[in-house]
């Protein structure tokens, strides 16, 4: 990932971009989200125990806000065309188009209630807790004696916010954060059932309009959130989904944040694939991009005076005649002193194999999948019965067998940009502290062809005889080092990309016209303190001694064995120095006779004085004169 390279090239040819066709992230899959946050007093009084060493507890309200804040920052980077609204219910103040009480839509200037995220929104939302009590206020909206129903109002407001856009082209979602599993618990009798019925009807109406309501419950270990109490019906969970909904809610704060964060994602299918296993048995798979490098957005060129975006126009000019031409459908490649011309149709025909299908070729033991068989990020495959009944069943059977037998599948993927061999690795589900760490399914890894693999190691083989190998003692010392510098709980997600973080910190500061750019902590630096611990230092010292010997100085080693080329250079320099002494350079220069010398002779001087020897004769002469300060 090279930021500058990628972003400096706004006209990258999408035809050749292997991932261009993979991304279905067009306008049509835009997302409108309303974050509906319960602001009842219970959200402020309930807390979540923080991790063991840190005694600070955090309120549910704070957790919900920090999840949303994180999601906003993510969204402005990755999916800034999506729109969102943030809406609190059970509030003292009200602000919404319908003037319903107990519901407050949070917003900042220059922005509609439902709109794209802006730098200002993110900034002010981060500070909302400071002024929440003053400006918005927390107050239970459902109390006995009144028929006020803040939950009903909240869903209605959310529905109204999501009125724009067609449900076909936009995903409309309401994410509901609450810790009250029985919102009508304080009401009794007929009024209760009446209010409950109304609220459910309201939710159903919203769902009928293509709005999905998702619940993000917050709970305490001593007081678990009971979904079946009320919300199961509201969000339309069915019997079998109920068990899946709360996979034993985590006890730790971090786990809860993690789960909430994951629930906020919307799964996006990259492609539907047909996987031909054997003749007559083809199953349906959906592919997902679970890992893709995040890069800073593309550059937009602006007019430096007005700061208005510029339009770029492409024109094609015939290099021979200078005439403007249409984009040509012909391409050529020079070969044997000819220009061989291809039509674009012929070129796509060359790349055409069984289009879009995945064709099973066989299986190999996992040990055959070497670490250097990799070219790009993997793609995740999960079966679907949507079009073909039985796909899931076959997939599970293969998946289980492959894990048991420790084998991976080799298949040919006839994608349009780069038809290729792929390895399919079955991944078992991994669940840690109640959350799914790795989903069950298969990962599709592009295999290199022999054309893509370079024989580097062999080029470094010793011409004759053996290379030195480590002795058992040295290996043991190395093992001690490895034991000492052990990252126990290493997980790939633990580092934020410091380059990217910096990039967006700069943009945010500039967008908000702030003077200071906040410092970004680079989490990727080694743990200096840890490395300075006596045990680590001792292990490193011992390893060093066993390999390099006592009192080893690295510089010595580097100079002790000069390479062939450097030996040659040295010899040349010696010769030059010697030859150089045969001339009286001062006089030659004074009398202007330098130009009468040969280039070889001139180079003696240059080499002897460590000067560059490139260029034409005049350049050499003038270089010598400059050096002699004449």
């Amino acid at each position, binding site marked *: 990932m090279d930021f500058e390279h990628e972003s400096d090239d706004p006209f990258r040819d999408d035809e050749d971009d292997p991932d261009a066709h993979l991304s279905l992230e067009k306008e049509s899959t835009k997302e409108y989200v309303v974050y509906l946050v319960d602001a009842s007093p219970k959200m402020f009084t309930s807390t979540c125990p923080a991790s063991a060493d840190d005694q600070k507890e955090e309120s549910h309200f704070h957790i919900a806000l920090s999840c949303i804040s994180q999601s906003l920052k993510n969204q402005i980077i990755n999916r800034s065309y999506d729109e969102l609204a943030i809406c609190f219910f059970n509030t003292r103040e009200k602000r919404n188009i319908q003037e319903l009480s107990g519901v407050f839509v949070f917003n900042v200037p220059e922005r509609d209630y439902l709109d794209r995220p802006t730098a200002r929104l993110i900034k002010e939302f981060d500070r909302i807790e400071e002024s929440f009590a003053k400006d918005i206020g927390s107050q239970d909206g459902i109390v006995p004696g009144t028929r006020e129903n803040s939950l009903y109002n909240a869903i209605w407001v959310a529905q109204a916010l999501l009125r724009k856009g067609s449900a076909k082209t936009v995903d409309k979602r309401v994410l509901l954060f609450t810790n009250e599993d029985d919102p009508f618990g304080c009401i009794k009798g007929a009024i209760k059932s009446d209010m409950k019925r109304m609220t459910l009807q309201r939710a159903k109406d919203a769902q009928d309009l293509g709005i999905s309501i998702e619940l993000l419950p917050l709970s305490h270990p001593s007081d678990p959130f009971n979904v079946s109490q009320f919300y199961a019906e509201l969000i339309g969970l069915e019997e079998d989904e109920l068990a899946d909904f709360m996979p034993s809610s985590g006890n730790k704060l971090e786990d809860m944040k993690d789960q909430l964060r994951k629930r906020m994602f919307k799964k996006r299918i990259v492609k539907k694939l047909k996987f031909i296993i054997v003749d007559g048995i083809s199953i349906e798979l959906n592919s997902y991009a679970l890992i893709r490098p995040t890069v800073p957005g593309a550059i937009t060129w602006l007019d430096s005076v007005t700061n208005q975006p510029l339009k770029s126009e492409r024109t094609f000019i015939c290099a021979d005649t200078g005439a403007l031409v249409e984009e040509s459908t012909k391409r050529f490649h020079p070969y044997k002193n000819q220009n061989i011309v291809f039509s674009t149709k012929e070129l796509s025909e060359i790349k055409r194999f069984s*289009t879009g299908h995945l064709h099973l070729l066989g299986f190999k033991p996992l040990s055959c999948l070497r670490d250097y068989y990799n070219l790009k990020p993997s793609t995740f495959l999960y079966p679907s019965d949507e079009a073909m009944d039985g796909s899931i069943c076959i997939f599970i059977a293969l998946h289980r067998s492959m894990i048991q037998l420790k084998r991976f599948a080799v298949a040919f993927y006839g994608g349009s940009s780069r038809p290729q061999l792929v390895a399919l*690795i079955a991944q078992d589900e991994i669940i840690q502290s109640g959350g799914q760490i790795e989903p069950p399914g298969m990962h599709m890894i592009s295999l290199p062809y*022999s054309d893509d693999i370079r024989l580097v190691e062999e080029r470094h083989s010793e011409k004759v005889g053996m290379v030195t190998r480590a002795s058992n003692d040295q290996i043991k010392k190395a093992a001690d080092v490895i034991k000492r510098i*052990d990252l126990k709980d*290493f997980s790939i997600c633990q580092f934020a*990309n*410091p380059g990217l973080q910096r990039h967006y910190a700069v943009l945010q500061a500039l967008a908000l016209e702030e003077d200071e750019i906040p410092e970004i902590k680079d989490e990727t630096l080694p743990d200096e303190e840890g490395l300075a611990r006596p045990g680590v230092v001792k292990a490193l010292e011992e390893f060093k001694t066993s390999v390099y010997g006592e009192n080893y100085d690295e510089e010595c080693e580097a100079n002790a064995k000069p390479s062939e080329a450097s030996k040659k250079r040295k010899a040349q320099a010696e010769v030059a120095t010697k030859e150089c002494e045969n001339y009286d350079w001062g006089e030659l220069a004074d009398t202007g006779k330098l130009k009468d010398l040969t280039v070889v002779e001139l180079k003696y001087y240059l080499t002897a004085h460590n000067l560059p020897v490139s260029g034409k004769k005049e350049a050499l002469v003038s270089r010598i004169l400059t050096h002699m300060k004449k």
Partner: protein
Amino acid sequence: MARNKEALVLLLDVGPSMHSVIPEIEKVCSMLVEKKLIFTKYDEVGVVLFGTEDTDNELTEEVGGYQHVVVLKNIKVVEGDIVEALQQLPRGATHGDFLDAIIVGMDMLIKKFGETNKGKKRLCLITNAQCPIKEPFEGTKEEQVTTIAKQMTVHGMRMESIILRGKLSQDANKKIMDENDQLLRIFSTETSARSTYVENPVSLLGALRTRNITPSTIFKGDLELSPKLKIKVLVYKKTAEEKFPTLKKFSDKAASTDKFATHEVKVDYEYKSSQEPDKVVPPDQRIKGYRYGPQIVPISQAEWDAVKFKPEKGLKLLGFTDSSNVLRHQYMKDVNVFIAETGNTKATLALSSLVRAMKEMNKVAILRCVWRHGQANVVIGVLTPNLSDKENIPDSLYFNALPFAEDVREFQFPSFSNFPAPIQPNEQQLEAAANLVKMLDLAPQGKEEVLLPDFTPNPVLERFYRYLELKSKHADAAVPPLDDTLKKITEPDDELLQQNKSVIENFRRSFELKENPRHKKSRRLLREERYGSGEENSKGEIPALASNLIEDKSNVEVDNIGDLTPVQDFEAMFARRDNPDWVVKAIDAMKNKIHDLIEDSHEGDNNSKALECLAALRKGCINEQEPKQFNSFLRDIWSFCQEKNLHDFCDSLSSKGITLIPKSEAADSEVTEDEARSFLVKSQPKV
């Protein structure tokens, strides 16, 4: 460039036992020369054949002996005639002696270059090494080979041997083969030689590197275990995608008589302001802007350079961890390899101890890398140990980039165990699957691994370069179909399928697949439908929303032909009246679908579906008075099937009575009743 030019002598065994594989040798060797013509056109190539009836080489004239060795092409700068010669190698009639050929090849290189060109002289031997080499006049064969190998080292020659075994060699005398293997191994230990054993045609195509790229370091310096312990390493690319060549845009504007025409097309980019579309904004009046939400933040390069992230160049170890903490699918990019600095024995030792300790303990190392000075980002990656199994190759480490937190999308998927029982596979199904996984084996014990990436060529590139050569002679040639060897990369191997017929049959019988009749829609889709119809009813009442609603409605309509119900989709598109273009679109989409069905059909399994579609298309074209569309398409399909030998489809056409649309059925047609009838007759296979 010229100083990197290589001199290569191909030593090809064309004896009787080689005849069956000569077509593949022709392909791989001509490809090698073709690529030299493109990428390294100053390279020199010579071709020596052995196992020929004739004898034609300088050594036989000078000292006698060296029978049945023919110098087909003397060493010279690559030219088209070498490609042609390699495309039609003669079949030899006698057993060849590969050692004779090696000596002839060496002699050619020595005579041409003497002591010069060290390291750039290469011999490439392709043989099945089934015939014994002659007894030397004095000493043993081993001694003779050792002497020759030493000579190679002296002259700075490298040798690459590709030895054909398994399916590629017939039953041969095992004793002789073992002896020859032993002799060839001497080369590998005594000089820089590489022997590759291949057992099938695909790996023969992949085993000979047709393009050699000189690796260059992407990093040279310290691998920092701690500030106090640094190991000098070199980092190279281990894999890098060999891209499809970028072709230039062709302009035919220049006169065909103009010999100096470049035919190139220049692409010009101009930036224009959106307010004044005619005004071109010069580069110095442009400033870069980055999107941040709806805002575009302008920032000049100088400003950016001042504030951007500037990590220090270097490789720093973060720590070691269990290899199970990094999963295979988390690798992000192409792979690098870490090798100790050349000639630095201490560094080699240090790296070797780490590699071996990591392997023993099942650990990997996590690294933070900044490869270049001024790079604006860091890379986090994992080092995995690579123990060398050859004694003259040093141990090394492979480096794979890992994702950052921002790069991972943590989607949640249902556990398989949560699916209801009817969806779960039963015991018998699991067994059938396990058998398939076990038996469809691409890495059988004791045999060569099939489709080993290191020996599998890229079929697209093979096809392109072959086509390029073909076009250089016949400009109008059509794209050739994949040959049988390359098909083994893209399709399952027939032989393997035959061997496991019962396992496959059992698998097929164990599972039931059927197209989902309920056409199960997600709840969301169902909701949408209700939404659509509900809105329609209220259409008159809320006129303000009308335009929006029409858009909604049309969005629910079918706008393409899918895989499941092509006929229904086609009819639905036809029925749309919101835009007359739909008819044309539907016809085009249907044509494509039919074409795809026929083309993707395997042993006619798509034929019935394709016929259904064709019938629907015919009906539609009659109704819409578009007979010409259908007629020309049917003719195309017809000739396509003839070309691809899809006679059974043609047969079923006539059996279903699908023929051209005559005048009697659609007035616009130019086809007479008779013509339509005879079209069917024509499709009957000629006896």
